[in-house]
């Protein structure tokens, strides 16, 4: 039996697909993960894409229609400081122009089809290196050269 993703999963999956396609074309061996914990089980470099908090604001007075803004958190795990800076700049360059928003139909955890339905607009970007303040040799390999990119995104639809 098939089922459709709702908006949050569509948003997350669309960004993953967009980044995966670009990274495959321009980089070698950069993995993409959806689960933070699983990111630690795959070889570096890896980018973890997660949906964070979402806000729903009333679209107009007198109705219950809302517009959503979602936070997308991109954890970039790399093998060196140089790679961290290059990879985060590459991701920002690609993502700042936005990407297609797809609606996915799945069955048994496999994507059966997807339909483009608008664009994901990036409203703001913030990026920062994560330095846990400890001696890098004391940290796990994944935590040594980490960067966090936070995106505020919207698909501009009234729900």
């Amino acid at each position, binding site marked *: 039996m098939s089922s459709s993703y709702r908006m949050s999963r569509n948003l997350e999956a669309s960004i993953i697909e967009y980044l995966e396609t670009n990274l495959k074309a321009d980089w070698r061996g950069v993995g993409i993960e959806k689960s*933070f*914990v699983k990111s*630690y089980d795959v070889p570096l470099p890896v980018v973890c894409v997660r949906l*964070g*908090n979402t*806000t729903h*604001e009333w679209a107009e007075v007198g109705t219950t229609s809302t517009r959503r803004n979602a*936070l997308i*958190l991109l*954890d970039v795990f790399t093998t060196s400081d140089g790679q961290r800076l290059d990879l985060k700049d590459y991701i920002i360059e690609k993502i700042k122009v936005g990407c297609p928003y797809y609606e996915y139909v799945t069955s048994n955890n496999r994507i059966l089809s997807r339909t483009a339905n608008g664009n994901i607009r990036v409203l703001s970007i913030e990026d920062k290196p*994560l330095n*846990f*303040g*400890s001696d890098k040799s*004391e*940290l*796990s390999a*994944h*935590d040594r050269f*980490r960067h*966090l990119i*936070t995106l505020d995104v919207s698909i501009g639809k009234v729900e």
Partner: protein
Amino acid sequence: MIKITVSPRVSTALLIQNIIDKPLAQMAIELDIVGKAVHEKTKAYINATATERRGAHSGDLAASLTYKFYNFGKRMGFNIGKVSKLPIYWEVVNYGGYVPPTLVGSFWGNSPEASKAGNGNEKFIPDRGGYLMKPSSPIRPMNYISYGYTIAKLLITKVFQKQKRRGK
């Protein structure tokens, strides 16, 4: 940690109007209310997420979040949390990851138990005479700073909308 600054565009007309009916002073009051709400909501979020994950929490992280409002006329805002006053684990709880692998300590004097990994609710206390702690899985990020920003943005937008309506 969470730092919000608002710089209203101040014209001479607005400054004069401010003497008459004090819109900037009103805005400062509203911004302070927003700041306090963000402060409380962030603390509640930290405690709720910790309880959801571990069944209990010490409350130390949420309790260490300070709140400070400032108003210099053209610049006003609020700061939530001061790094020097936060517990050392604030970063790893917010961003997720492994704690340094060579951590020695105990759970109230007891050794770590593999069967309770990730499910226990006791506090780990670093102690030289304790046990070697080797975490088997990373700490999942709580992203409470992002949560605070999201709430702040939402509430501040409402203050601006109110301000705009007043100006009409």
